[in-house]
């Protein structure tokens, strides 16, 4: 592997295992998050995502395995590694009686940021997460989504090279999700390595460059989003006259089954996007009044459902 030969810029974790009593939360997991890309960490509840992120954030010692944060071993040099890691937990955890501005300021102090630069940086981040108007409000009165955004700002205060975000999108309204997407893409463009764990796979299609699928404490699949999109996926098709659509599909020799959605649609498995375009053209040419023709699920969701994951 090339990561072994030349120093890997970004976050690399190999062979991570961690056990809690009888529960093997993480078993021999592997994750490479290159700088400049967003890496999604996907898996069912209890798969070990949060545990892995805690190990990567240098909060939890692994039973075995190595972590490198921009080439630094956090077990040996925790301070040097932590200066480069930003961690956003899945629990909110805000100091309730402090204001948003005070929380960011004190976090900057904890990261030993120079005093002079701190106020400007705090303002910058409050603007970034759209909390400038609520800067003087106690964190207690902020809504869940606002607290979530504050938590993101808190993880970014020291401009870390590696970002570890545990379910950052949970509780966010659609507008905030769009701006989260924008923020994360912006960070990746700045050359940061971003790791996002999330259950909203459609969201990750837009954000992530690559995905690591974990299940029952193991890495089960590593894919780029390009690869995921290139693999076969299902399309949902609906038409004004469902009977005509079914007849035409049968004539074309395309196998289909009744869609799972609310509306009257059929679901078709297609190998590539080109085949999809071809099928749509064929249907339209045959005079079928197609009203919707779209992937039934996102690329990553397709991968996820293809895996035989078990929830625990």
């Amino acid at each position, binding site marked *: 592997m090339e990561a072994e030969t030349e120093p890997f810029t970004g976050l690399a974790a190999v062979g991570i295992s961690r056990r*809690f*009593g009888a529960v093997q939360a993480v078993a021999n997991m592997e994750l490479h998050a290159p700088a400049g890309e967003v890496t999604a960490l996907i898996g069912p509840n209890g798969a070990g995502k*949060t545990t892995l992120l*805690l*190990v990567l*954030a*240098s*909060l*939890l*010692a*692994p039973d075995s395995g190595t972590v490198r944060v921009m080439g*630094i071993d*956090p*077990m040996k*040099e*925790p*301070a*040097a*590694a*932590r*200066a*480069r*890691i930003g*961690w956003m*937990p*899945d*629990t*909110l*955890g*805000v*100091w*309730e*009686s*402090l204001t948003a501005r*005070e929380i960011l300021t*004190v*976090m900057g*102090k*904890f*990261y*030993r*940021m*120079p*005093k002079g*630069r701190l106020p400007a940086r705090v303002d910058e981040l409050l603007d970034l997460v759209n909390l400038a108007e609520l800067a003087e409000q106690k964190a207690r009165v902020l809504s869940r989504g606002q607290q979530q955004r504050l938590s993101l700002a*808190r993880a970014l205060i*020291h*401009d870390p090279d590696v970002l570890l975000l*545990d379910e950052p999108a949970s509780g966010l309204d659609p507008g905030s999700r769009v701006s989260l997407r924008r923020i994360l893409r912006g960070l990746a463009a700045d050359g940061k390595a971003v790791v996002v764990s999330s259950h909203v796979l459609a969201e990750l299609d837009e954000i992530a460059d690559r995905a690591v699928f974990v299940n029952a404490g193991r890495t089960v699949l590593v894919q780029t989003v390009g690869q995921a999109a290139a693999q076969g996926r299902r399309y949902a098709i609906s038409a004004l006259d469902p009977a005509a659509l079914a007849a035409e599909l049968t004539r074309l020799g395309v196998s289909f089954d009744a869609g799972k959605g609310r509306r009257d649609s059929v679901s078709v498995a297609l190998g590539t996007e080109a085949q999809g375009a071809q099928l749509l053209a064929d249907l339209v040419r045959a005079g079928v009044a197609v009203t919707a023709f779209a992937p039934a699920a996102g690329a990553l969701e397709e991968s996820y459902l293809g895996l035989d994951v078990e929830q625990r």
Partner: protein
Amino acid sequence: MTIMENGTGPAPRTDAGPSGLGAYAAGVWAVVGMELRQRLRARGWYIMLVVWFGLIWLVTALTWASWKVQSSAQGDFGGVAGSAANGPGPLIFEAVLAFVLLFGLLVAPALSANAISGDRAGGTLAIMQVTLLRPGQLLWGKFLASWCAALAFLVVSVPFLVFGILQGGLGAGHILVALLMLAIELGVVCALGVGVSALANRPLFSIVVTYLVVAALTFGTLIAFGLGMMVTDGTVQANQVYYKNSYVATGPDGTVDPSQPSGQPELPQDITDQNDQFACYGPMQDQRAPRTDRVAWLLGMNPFVVVADAIPYPDRTSAAQQQYAVGAFESISQGARSAQAGPEATYQCANGKVAASYLSPQAPLWPLGLGLQLLLTAGVLALAWRALRTPAGRLAKGTRVA
């Protein structure tokens, strides 16, 4: 505590501040500032302060009123009481001091014992641990903040102590030493509370444990001392006691010697030592006596003993002064010191010497007691430091980092 190396890696936007001790102190200061800000916004703290003020006011007023009643009654009968002659100063001072210490011991755990377990429950501990803060900085910051909060209670009670001093009979030195010792005792309890809170998972549990530790220090040490005295039964060489003012000669075990004729007996011949009340005579014998000197350290750990023993009082061994302790604190101090001196010094006629009714100032007990308290605190804090280290190895059962 070992201090980890500073991150010297090329981190552009951090680590640009001062290095070494200055950076360490800056981190501690940041924690203190954040904690104090949160505490100042909590209404409960102000309510507690007001209640505290009211209670101390009540104690002062009642003490003063009771002195008034007493002294006027004594005036009616024409008696000259020692305390009345001195004025109510020492009385008020001691009453206020005792109550401030008592209430302080009750309040300090509440102020300190959820410092870290509360953060753990609220999910904010891990957020601090993931920064460049070290476990030691976290502990120092939390401790100093809770100590500051506890000292505010002391400040509120200063006017009453000053009032006691103004009533006469005491010097300003008393108030300074007393305040210093109270502050130290509050600090010990706060440090214990912060240490326990780092070890416990839930705030309620750490508060209860801290109260139990405080109870062990205030009551447990007394009980342990009492039990220990029985266990450490030893012997001391002593001869017979002759009571000059009584008409009966008794052995050291209190039995009346029937061979002695009633009426004033003659002074024995072989007197080894005597004063105007007692005489020691006869051959030395092994007498059973509790070796209090072996368990006095238990007594010394009691916060009340530490404070009482540290406050200076005049040397009353000279004949010109009354030969008994006046105040409650002086009595506590004398009691503790005689326990520390052991039977060799306090058993009547031990080694043929008349025991002094009042011990001359000897090695005080409070440095030993305070030292042991600090040792205990340091032990708890060392465990707390271990528990806060990250990356965390073993986790307490049933806890998550986040």
